């Protein structure tokens, strides 16, 4: 098994050989505005080399960067009835979905895959903020339930990468009830004594934070991610005062006891492998590799 060689350094060749690289040669950092050569950006897992700002990463890129040998298979889930409420604001909901599908190439705001993580069969779910703000509706609920059922069947750990503006308004109360619905799924993991690890990415807000995304056995966040229930703008309007610097960011939550760790993307794979083996009460896959790595404890620099 050659996952051992990927263990310390995640395989990224699959990422920078993608089509996107030919479209633009340079990527502008959303935080410090520095121009990053596309290849370097991909190699660095969409993190700015100058300021460590963590930018958007698609579910597919995540899976490739995490699973052994970048090998994984997608888990399919039932499509719910589309637009049961016939929702229309300035645009029809069905059109919004079509647009999102066209621009992301994905069918919904979450993807779930199965593969080996450090040699252990693991399910990873990943929300896609580019698909209607990663919003949680019936499809996200179906996907999480399906992924959890697979985890229970295979006795696999379940890892969830959260990214969402919250519940999907266009599904109204049907999106609201995904909060208890996904919580039932998390209960299934608990009853089966399987690790449930949440990685909060930028941004995770609203009904998603207030349900499955805060119920992990271990709560990890990427640096500087906005993580909240109510967004900063809503709060400023309510309390009519300016919020402190870094409010509702990962490091702030860590300081307030809401997270276990803030971890840079490049250390995530190692950290997750270490955690699933510890929680599953199994010997480490390769003795020495984990402790020798320069992975962080708690907040990283």
């Amino acid at each position, binding site marked *: 098994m050659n996952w051992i060689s990927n263990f310390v350094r995640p395989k990224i060749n699959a990422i920078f050989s993608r089509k996107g690289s030919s479209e633009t040669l340079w990527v502008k950092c959303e935080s410090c505005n520095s121009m990053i050569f596309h290849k370097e950006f991909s190699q660095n897992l969409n993190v700015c080399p100058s300021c460590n700002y963590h930018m958007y990463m698609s579910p597919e890129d995540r899976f490739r960067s995490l699973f052994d040998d970048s090998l994984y298979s997608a888990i399919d889930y039932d499509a719910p009835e589309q637009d049961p409420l016939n929702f229309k604001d300035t645009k029809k909901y069905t059109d919004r979905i079509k647009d999102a599908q066209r621009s992301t190439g994905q069918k919904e705001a979450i993807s779930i895959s199965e593969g080996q993580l450090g040699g252990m069969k693991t399910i990873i779910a990943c929300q896609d903020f580019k698909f209607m703000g990663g919003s949680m509706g*019936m499809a996200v609920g179906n996907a999480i339930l399906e992924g959890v059922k697979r985890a229970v069947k295979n006795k696999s750990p379940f890892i969830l990468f959260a990214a969402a503006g919250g519940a999907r308004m266009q*599904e109204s109360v*049907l999106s609201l009830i*995904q909060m*208890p619905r996904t919580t039932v799924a998390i209960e299934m993991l608990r009853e089966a004594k399987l690790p449930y690890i949440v990685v909060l990415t930028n941004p995770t807000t609203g009904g998603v934070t207030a349900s499955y995304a805060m119920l992990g056995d271990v709560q990890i966040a990427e640096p500087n991610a906005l993580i909240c229930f109510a967004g900063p703008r809503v*709060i400023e309007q309510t309390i009519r005062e300016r919020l402190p610097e870094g409010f*509702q960011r990962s490091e702030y939550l860590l300081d307030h006891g*809401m997270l276990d760790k803030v971890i840079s993307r490049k250390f995530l794979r190692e950290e997750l492998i270490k955690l699933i083996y510890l929680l599953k009460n199994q010997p480490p896959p390769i003795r020495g590799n984990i402790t020798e790595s320069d992975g962080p404890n708690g907040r990283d620099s």
Partner: protein
Amino acid sequence: MTIYLDFEKDLAEIQSKISDLEGLPDSSSSKNIKNEIKLLKSKTVDILSNLYADMSPWRKCQVARHPERPHTTDYINYIISEYTPLSGDRNFAEDLAIVGGLGRLGDTPVVVIGHEKGNSTESRLKRNFGMARPEGYRKAARLMKLADKFGLPIITFIDTPGAYPGKGAEERGQAEAIARSTQTCLEVSVPIISIIIGEGGSGGAIAMASANTLIMLEHSIYSVISPEGCASILWKNSDKMREAADALKLTAQHLKKIGVVDKVIKEPLGGAHRDKNKALEEVKKTLLEELIAFQKIDRQKIKKHRSDKYINMGSLSNL
């Protein structure tokens, strides 16, 4: 003194005419005046019947938020005997936006929990308009666990614009507190009967409404976001709340149709606030019926009933 909503202007005029006539010195002796009052009163009933028969979702929101509508404390005082309030989350504070405690529904000891909006300027401030902070949800979860330990059914009254969006609330883990409260709802093996008496506002509501049976009052609402909030995000204009209320389909009637709500309780003509005692009595009757229905069911089945309900509900594939 009734507060009239903007669409009830005609009623307000008629009522002031009635008051004027009743105030006349010979109102009790004059047959003409008595007849006129009688006529005006029957006109009031006609207008109310018309207004409230097929009300728009936005008007429902207005009625659901009516300040004179009976609130959780009114229901508890009327329905629950030997009510013993319990306080605090054992971590940080007592949140007065959520009330709860022990008591009896009929002869059965129960745990009752609910959002309280308050009914005067002072009490509304004290209750934070029914918008709970993390401590409120942690108290709710604590009381649910207490109920579970002693095998007591849980009754929750839902009436909140939503969880409080404040600085301290966020710092102390509003999201986590809501998530844990919902989780506790799904963990316990005693029946949970929830009733939305006014506003069922988003996560702040579902944290206490993840129930075996969900009941709504005829003019209450239940939504993922307020119509104003939805309008400002999707229409980029908060004045479009009527359109948003329509689109959100947040009425009890619609939610019953799609199976999210199990039962709808009819309100007195013109809304619960126009005949409080009748509204309280109807709710009491329904809660007693539900309680009896669950008494025959095995505790482990009760938990499964609730989980299965949510697993099957959310995808609409079974409708």
